[in-house]
């Protein structure tokens, strides 16, 4: 039954209409599943704030437009534009450090005429893998040592600029999105093992450049009870929310931690705690499976992409999407330190939704612009 449903869906995907509109039905379908479920959680997490849900729907709609628009753009144009975009955004990142506007002690935004604000680091999440994939697109794989060094410099430059803002979460995502390309391009296992061995040293140097509030987060992660009312509060309350949800959860809108405001940031970074409290382990498993569905489809698209550029880019974007989810759930459930990474497509918030939706536009473009065999 399942098999037949899957093959029928595939047949549907191959239908001419989807080919023409450059839509990948399986990807869009699993995305809509996540988005729809996410809106229900947001309604609960926001204290049944309909206006907030409406704004989120608007953003998602905007993101969907970007997604569909990008899907129309053949990958070869993306490839050509990659280095220009990368350099341009890197310049903007320098601009942010010089002229940016801040919030909560961090400078992340550039003011545009007309009162708009613009966060270049967000775009780097896409342009970084594009750049590295472009770099490898006309070079034989696996990369040579010299190429690896070049790529590492390319990755480090914007990552350090973003980390300096400071925005640890985004710089992390940007870094891994570049590193994933390197990995998919065939980075030798000995380098990978070597890097793993050097990780403690890297960690130490990272600690040296981190801001106090970031260090505080790591300390709190290691021992949340050390400051139960201060910075440990978030993680204690989120673990309490998740744990008290049990297997079945307390039911939609019934989570006491969330509804009685014990859970901070419940509609943004910590929204998974609301979900876990209200829908329990069963709900969480379904959610993670839905994410895996999206990821599986993304990796399938990557594996069947037409050229190296498309393959590396699609693979990296999909894996980066996974990192979002993993880091977010990991930090909220207390196995990773709290870095500001939203739960993709579900957390309330502006720019990241648009970039993530754009990511899937690129994936669909890669899937639907293949020359007929």
């Amino acid at each position, binding site marked *: 039954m399942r098999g037949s449903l899957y093959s029928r869906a595939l047949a549907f995907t191959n239908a001419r209409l989807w080919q023409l509109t450059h839509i990948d039905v399986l990807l869009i379908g699993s995305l809509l599943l996540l988005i729809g479920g996410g809106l229900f959680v947001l309604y609960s997490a926001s204290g049944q704030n309909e206006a907030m849900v409406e704004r989120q729907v608007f953003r998602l709609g905007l993101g969907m437009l970007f997604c569909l628009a990008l899907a129309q753009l053949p990958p070869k144009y993306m490839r050509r534009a990659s280095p220009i975009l990368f350099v341009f955004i890197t310049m903007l990142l320098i601009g942010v450090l010089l002229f940016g506007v801040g919030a909560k002690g961090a400078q992340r935004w550039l003011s545009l005429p007309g009162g708009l604000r613009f966060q270049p680091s967000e775009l780097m999440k896409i342009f970084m893998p594009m750049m590295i994939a472009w770099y490898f697109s006309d070079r*034989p*794989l*696996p990369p*040579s040592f010299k190429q690896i060094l070049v790529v590492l410099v390319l990755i480090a430059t914007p990552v350090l600029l973003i980390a300096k803002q400071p925005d640890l979460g985004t710089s992390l995502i940007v870094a891994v999105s570049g590193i*994933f390309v390197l*990995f*998919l*391009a*065939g980075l030798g296992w000995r380098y990978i093992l070597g890097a793993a061995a050097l990780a403690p040293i890297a960690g130490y140097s990272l600690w040296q450049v981190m801001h106090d509030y970031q260090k505080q987060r790591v300390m709190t992660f290691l021992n949340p009870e050390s400051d139960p009312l201060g910075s440990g509060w978030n993680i204690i*309350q989120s*673990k*309490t*929310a*998740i*744990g*008290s*949800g*049990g*297997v079945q959860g307390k039911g939609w809108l019934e989570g*006491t*931690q969330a509804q*009685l*405001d*014990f859970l901070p940031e419940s509609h943004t970074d910590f929204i998974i705690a609301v979900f*876990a409290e209200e829908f*329990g*382990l069963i709900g*969480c*498993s379904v959610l*993670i499976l839905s*994410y*895996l569905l999206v*990821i*599986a489809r993304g*990796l399938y698209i*990557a*594996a069947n992409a037409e050229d*190296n550029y498309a*393959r*590396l880019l699609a*693979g990296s974007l999909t*894996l980066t999407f*996974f990192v979002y989810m*993993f880091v977010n*759930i*990991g930090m909220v*459930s*207390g*196995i990773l330190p709290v870095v500001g990474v939203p739960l993709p497509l579900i957390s309330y918030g502006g720019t990241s939704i648009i970039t993530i939706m754009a990511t899937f536009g690129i994936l669909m473009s890669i899937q639907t612009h293949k020359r007929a065999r």
Partner: protein
Amino acid sequence: MKARYQHFRNYHQEQRLTKFRLLAAFLFVLVLSGVLIARLFFLQVVEHELYQTKADENRVMLVTEPPPRGLIYDRNGVVLADNRAIHSLTVIPERVKSFDELKLTLQNIIEISDAEWESFHNRLKEYRRPYQSITLKSQLTDEEWAKISVDLYKLDGVRVEDQLTRFYPHGEAFVHAIGYVGRITKKDLEKVDQQAYQGALFIGKTGVEGFYEDELFGSPGLSKVEVNARGRIMSELGRQNPTPGKDLHLHLDARLQQYAYDLLGDYVGSVVALDPSTGGVLALVSKPGFDPNWFVRGISSKNYSLLRNSPKLPLFNRALRGGYPPASTIKPFMALSGLEYGFASWSERYFAGGYYQINPGGRRYRDWKREGHGLIDLERSIIESVDTYYYQLAHKMGITPIHNFLSRFGFGQTTLLDLHGGSVGLLPSNEWKKAKYNEPWYTGDSLNIGIGQGYMVATPVQVAAATSALAGRGRYYQPRMVDTIGDESVNFEGAGEEKKIQLKDSRNWEKMVVAMKKVITDSKGTARRLQGTQYDIAGKTGTGQVFSLQEDEEYDADALAKKLHDHALFIGFAPAEKPKITVFAIFENGGKSSKPADLSKKLFDAYLYDDYPEKYNYLKGKAE
């Protein structure tokens, strides 16, 4: 592996490489997703109960609702301690951004004195549950209430709360008997069940209020409420209504109490009246008193230091703690002890001169009557209060039999059964003096004890209780305030029982009462001014020396500053045959004993024949 160095590109192999890496990545994704699920499993299944409890602790709070405090009534149902509803302006400090701003805003609405702000800030520093309100201004007038109610919505964290507060309608005359309640301090909370006192404003501090705190308090209502992270109550999950505190019915007679207080006039002093058949306290006066309502409202530090530093010591409970020489009021007890141990007899005659000497040519122990009393017997020694008789008796007896006998009347031992903080006075002994001064007991010490002076110190409550034992012909009751708690008689167990004082010759009781009657009826009786009653009074006067007269010094009352005047004392009971009331009265520096004697007679008239001035009718209650 060599493919890496070939000049031409093997696209197929490159594709396979990336595909392989994609597969590896996907496996890694699955493993990490497994880690997430395992983590969630750990939190949601393995540690579920721990976090369930934590979540409930977060949201469920037990709020206690203080029970209405039991009322205190006198023997005729007059309310002595009442509960009143008041409107108070309260502030939840957690919800106020700036107290200076609040002060400015409130200034335009109602007047809040600096003292009120001061006590508010003081209470801010004290122990308190989070989000518990603090009273800023209590007892709003109706006008203030109306004014503030209009603007309340603008003031975050400010509320008008209806509270039950204690009110003592009869003020200062009763304070040393009833005591008062005051705001609960951190120290108070250490002594009680903190859970029960959550939300309670007051706790009994002194007097009956303090001693019967548990009974008066009742048990609080509990409501289980759901609160949000800011402590706001969202819903009630269940409740249990409070059980009101029990009412107390005292032996006290409110009219007698007030009358006795007023009769002390401008003097400092104390009056204790007992019912000799029960030990019940009919009046317990210590003057001056103070208005207990000050302490309920929260007394300003200025007024408090005024009370503390007043030379008349209004905060001092003289009836309970005042240590006075019993003076000549000890003589009936001394006489009985002489009779008991065979050192005195009713028939033996004694020549009482103007003084007594232990050794010829030694120190002269003076009688109050310079020329002496002539040839007298034991009865006359009581009637005329002959000092020399008791010098010689004490000389013969020595301290040990005196100590043993007076102990049986509670001297140096007892205090009120149901009030805290009473003093036990001092009944000296050989051992006591050895321990205290490391000196032997001298005969001269005994002589002073013989006339109730020297080292001996007794409280008004003690002397009144001992006098009641005379009135009861040996039936001794430890004095007590409370008759019934709710509908039940108070049970003091062993301590509350009648204690029979046995004499070898029990006829001595009656003979002593006759002698004490003659203190009034005899033409030379020291209380003959009390003659002319339709009932018999038995009594004994006393004048306690505040300073020691030198051997040959003349007592010149007028020349002495009033504070050096002798204390004037009187003990008595009536009707002598079947006593219903015993009175002890002392006027500090009152000079002659006529003042307490007159006071006692008025109390007898009032209590036995309802002969009160009309102005006390408001305290009559259901008394017939």
